[in-house]
């Protein structure tokens, strides 16, 4: 009796080809690391160049930002001042206004969508809110500069207030609306992750829906919601076009939302759009600002992602 022998060694395809393909795929995946590395290294490298010209302490603690470069040799004040505090002030002021708009609107929308809206209403309200997130920021900037800022100025005029045509308030409000969908969709996720049994328990005790939401659901969803708010804040801090078009250029220390302010992002763009020598302190300062922005947003993102992830595991 003869058995047919099975050939278990020969393959039609050479094995090395598979290895090459997998190696190529791995290379594609490592691009993500390369990009991060590229960002970090280029920012750090250029920032070090900058700190050779301007001392670190002047940058971090300086109260004056006026990075003009010398027109002729030996001009007074030629080096310019590179104190970042006014920029941080402006950035935080605009972001705070944006969050004052986005947090209540986004959270209230999320609560309404997850706790009250019927399936039908949810089906069209959610995508309609998402449209806000899909509109390019330059469009918001245009609207902020051309419609919202003059409106605020006019309204302020009615009350005898002198308001600049560009203000932190106009940029902040518009940015806040832009961030609403981000807050609402992440909060919606967090609220939906709260087990239905907790709602049942509260409603079964005779709590109204709003009592259940405020006393049980929201506290339970709080970690997820705070993660959402942190991500939104990071987004507001890194936003460029709206502030560029509507917040102004004036670097000053102010908490008045009706003042024109400038932000880290605005200064980066403004200093880089003119033509100037690549190694001037003015140009290099943008990388120091970029590094600051990167660290700031990265910290917020990392903390936010950690909170959100931990919270998800908690209920899974």
């Amino acid at each position, binding site marked *: 009796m003869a058995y047919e022998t099975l050939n278990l060694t020969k393959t039609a395809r050479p094995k090395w080809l598979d290895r090459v393909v997998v190696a190529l795929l791995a290379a594609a995946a490592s691009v993500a690391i390369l990009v991060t590395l590229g960002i970090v290294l280029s920012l750090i490298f250029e920032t070090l160049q900058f700190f050779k010209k301007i001392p670190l302490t002047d940058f971090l603690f300086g109260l004056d930002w006026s990075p003009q470069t010398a027109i002729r040799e030996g001009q007074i004040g030629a080096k310019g001042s590179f104190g970042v505090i006014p920029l941080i002030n402006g950035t935080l002021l605009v972001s705070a206004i944006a969050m004052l708009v986005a947090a209540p609107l986004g959270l209230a929308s999320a609560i309404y969508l997850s706790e009250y809206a019927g399936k039908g209403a949810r089906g069209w309200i959610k995508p309609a809110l998402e449209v806000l997130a899909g509109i390019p920021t330059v*469009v918001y900037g245009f609207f902020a500069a051309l419609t919202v800022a003059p409106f605020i100025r006019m309204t302020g005029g009615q009350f005898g207030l002198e308001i600049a045509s560009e203000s932190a308030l106009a940029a902040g409000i518009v940015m806040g*609306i832009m961030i609403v969908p981000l807050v609402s969709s992440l909060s919606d996720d967090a609220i939906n992750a709260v087990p239905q049994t907790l709602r049942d328990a509260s409603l079964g005790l005779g709590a109204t829906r709003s009592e259940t939401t405020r006393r049980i659901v929201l506290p339970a969803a709080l970690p997820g919601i705070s993660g959402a708010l942190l991500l939104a804040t990071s987004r507001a801090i890194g936003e460029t076009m709206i502030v560029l078009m509507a917040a102004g250029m004036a670097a000053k220390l102010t908490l008045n939302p009706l003042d024109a302010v400038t932000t880290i992002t605005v200064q980066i763009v403004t200093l880089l759009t003119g033509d100037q020598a690549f190694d001037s302190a003015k140009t290099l300062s943008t990388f120091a600002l970029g590094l600051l922005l990167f660290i700031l947003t990265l910290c917020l993102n990392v903390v936010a992602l950690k909170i959100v992830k931990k919270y998800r595991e908690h209920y899974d």
Partner: protein
Amino acid sequence: MIDFSKSAGFNLIRRHRAEKRFQWAGRSAIFISLTFLVVMVGSILMDAAGTLRQTQIAVTVDLGPDAVDPDNIAGARFGKILKSALRAQFPDAKKRKEKKKLYNLVSPEGSFEIKRQLIANPDLLGGPQTLWLTASDDLDLFYRGKSDASLPESQRRISDLEVAWIDTLAQSGSLRRVLNWNFLTNGDSREPEIAGILSALVGSLFSLAVCFALSFPIGIGAAIYLEEFAKPSRMSDLIEVNINNLAAVPSIIFGLLGLSIFLGYMGMPRSSPLVGGMVLALMTLPTIIISARAALRSVPPSFKQAALALGASPVQAVFHHVLPAAMPGMLTGAIIGMAQALGETAPLLMIGMVAFVVDVPDSILAPATALPVQIFLWADSPERAFTEKTAAAIIVLLIFLIAMNLIAILLRRKLEQRF
């Protein structure tokens, strides 16, 4: 006696009132956000409407052999021809200033338009001809009633004399409004009446093409590796963390990266769609990877197992069976990523795509601008007519975005039906 009515105590009246307030707060939050959306898009649409039509002015120009040499049409001095035609039509303009105002009724492009019409149709040569030329933006705005004629003369852009001329022209039927195709077929210009978006649009398309060519293959390659081949290791964890963080890095940081590495270190051409596309590709990469991974996960594992059982190698199983099934989902993610890239402005400003570009770029290395950057540039211009152009450019941008998202939605629908 047991009481279940509203008067049963338990503070019911107060609590139900609080409940109503709470619901009302939620509804008004949604209402405010959506009203903002409607007002924003509505006001932009209203501004943009003015760009739909362009005012033209009929000018009778002398195209006799004295003015234009039939053998050398291009050599004729059309500026002079146009000016004398205008003077003939309104002989009351005597002073230099008045003449200047008179010439300003027609767009500076007017003389080139005469030339183009003649070259296209040489039969016009030989005597006086009435040609329709693009009117200036001031005339256009006034004719459409966008300039306030009741203001004192010193406060408006258009003088009483010009108003009288425009009235005369309107009464004699020498003004008309035509569909403004120029807006779609012209490049940028200092003159709002002839400024168009074609150069910016082509710049955007070039950048997107580069962006797609880079980010799509790299993105799905990375997704395939992470989903199908990567063993859980510190490396793959690191890649995961990196992708998630990159997705939240401000876009302006990518601009800095492009500036220092692509322009500074690698010496690539400034202002080019190549660099713009590369920067956009880095930005969209996380979006594409994340959605491509979701698409791969949605393919039933049986597809791969069946192929493996038939003796395919893991690589063959993935490329022949899993990848085709995941492709529509990956494309959906890629289109959404491209839509994001199309609207992105800040990083392009930083790599110099803010140039004043009149000519349509002919390659990915030529200086170019992009549609959102064009919007930014026009929004900065003081002329009222540019506001309308900006709004119109925004509408064009939004139409592209809506179209891309619709395609993505349709693809997704199709995909949902399949599995």
